[in-house]
């Protein structure tokens, strides 16, 4: 069964450093999302992406964040200058046309020290 994959599973970085989280959505999906979950808290929407453009973004998704689909398979989330409060589990999700189910990847745990 096709699945969303994410790399790395765990990333440790120092405050102020740039990180890129990578996702490979399900191959025929066209809609892509990033969510995050701070430890012990609820899952929060960050951004949605369709047709090489951001469709919607939350207040969390400020100028420090960016997304890109650099090729036909990868979908990335970049944080330019990480802060301690960026420490969280980041989930990528994708969905197909006319499908309301979002398929989630296993997540990348980002630890900012």
């Amino acid at each position, binding site marked *: 069964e096709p699945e969303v994959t994410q790399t790395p599973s765990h990333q440790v970085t120092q405050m102020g450093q740039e990180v890129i989280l990578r996702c490979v959505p399900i191959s025929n999906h066209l809609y892509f*999302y990033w969510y995050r979950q701070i430890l012990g808290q*609820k899952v929060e929407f960050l951004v949605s992406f369709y047709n090489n453009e951001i469709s919607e973004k939350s207040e969390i998704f400020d100028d420090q964040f960016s997304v890109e689909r650099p090729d036909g398979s990868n979908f990335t989330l970049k944080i330019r200058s990480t802060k301690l409060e960026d420490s969280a589990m980041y989930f990528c999700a994708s969905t197909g046309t006319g499908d309301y189910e979002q398929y989630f990847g296993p997540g990348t745990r980002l630890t900012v020290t």
Partner: protein
Amino acid sequence: AQSVTQLDSQVPVFEEAPVELRCNYSSSVSVYLFWYVQYPNQGLQLLLKYLSGSTLVKGINGFEAEFNKSQTSFHLRKPSVHISDTAEYFCAVSSYNTDKLIFGTGTRLQVFP
């Protein structure tokens, strides 16, 4: 704006007992409703979804949920739980004018032998 409330942060239950996890939502437009399960150190897996039609929705692993528009609720039920159902359960909502998922704070179901 939409919101989701899961009043029970933890629900302890013995194996083979029935369980109900409560979810209430708030929205000014028609909604789509979802229940996701998160096993320890894993991503989110869809249990079931309500888009339209029959208000009783059956999902995987023997779970079901009932959409009640007048009470703005979408409670999750299982008639007989197993140890393996121990996990975090998240209720989520989206709508026709946005595909982002708004999640509740989650309910930790702990099944004891």
